[in-house]
């Protein structure tokens, strides 16, 4: 017997990707869209926050270095906002020093992925984070 999935499970999940590199946005978007997610993108941190309130994504993937607001500042704003305080947030960055990883996790990130990344692995990590919520 096939049990229909609940409506909430059938709905496509919306991911907000923020990175100042349009090349990186295109690659990450391709992996996530192929995995069945809807994606909205921002190239600035302040643009990401505005887009979050407009589109209400279920998960955030944030670069650390962005104009406007950096990824840590965006993350802190999300954690201070009741709408997104519990939303999964992944940091995606070329900063690989342990102190950078720790700063990201201390600010409330759920995952930290170092570039270069595999877009297929990225989609898999996003799926893991969403299943944990």
């Amino acid at each position, binding site marked *: 017997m096939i049990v229909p999935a609940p409506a909430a499970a059938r709905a496509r999940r919306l991911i907000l990707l923020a990175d100042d590199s349009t*090349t990186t946005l*295109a*690659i990450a978007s*391709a992996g996530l869209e192929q995995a069945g997610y809807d994606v909205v993108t921002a190239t600035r941190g302040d643009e990401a926050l505005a887009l979050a309130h407009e589109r209400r994504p279920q998960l955030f993937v944030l670069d650390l*270095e962005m104009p406007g607001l950096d990824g840590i500042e965006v993350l802190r704003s999300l954690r201070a906002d009741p709408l997104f305080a519990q939303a999964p947030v992944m940091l995606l960055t070329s900063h690989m020093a342990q102190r950078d990883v720790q700063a990201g996790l201390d600010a409330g990130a759920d995952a930290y992925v170092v*570039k*270069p990344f595999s877009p297929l692995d990225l989609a898999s990590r996003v799926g893991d984070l969403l299943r944990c919520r």
Partner: protein
Amino acid sequence: MIDEAAFDELRSFGDDFLVELVGQFTEETDALLRQLRESFDAGDTTAVGRIAHNVRGSAGQLGGRALASACDRVERNAITGDPTGRAIDLRAVELEYGRLRLALAERLTFVGVAP
């Protein structure tokens, strides 16, 4: 010159995607390298480090390890090195970018899609 595993994964999204991506990368990087040179000439090492960091990330995604390494050296020297900028080797970045552009065009031709 190109990390084949990274390139093959990008190719799995389709030839149209690959052509568009390479075009987007070169357009973005052309502009960034102009800004990099202008920032260097203006003595703005903070901007030099930030731009090199940006190019490092996208170059690595397209499998351009040598360009990513050259950008990494510029970024490190911009942040921690000689404040006069003499240790910042923009020529290496520009040289590796030229090589990567050529290699990407050759790979697109090799897999049968026009660059």
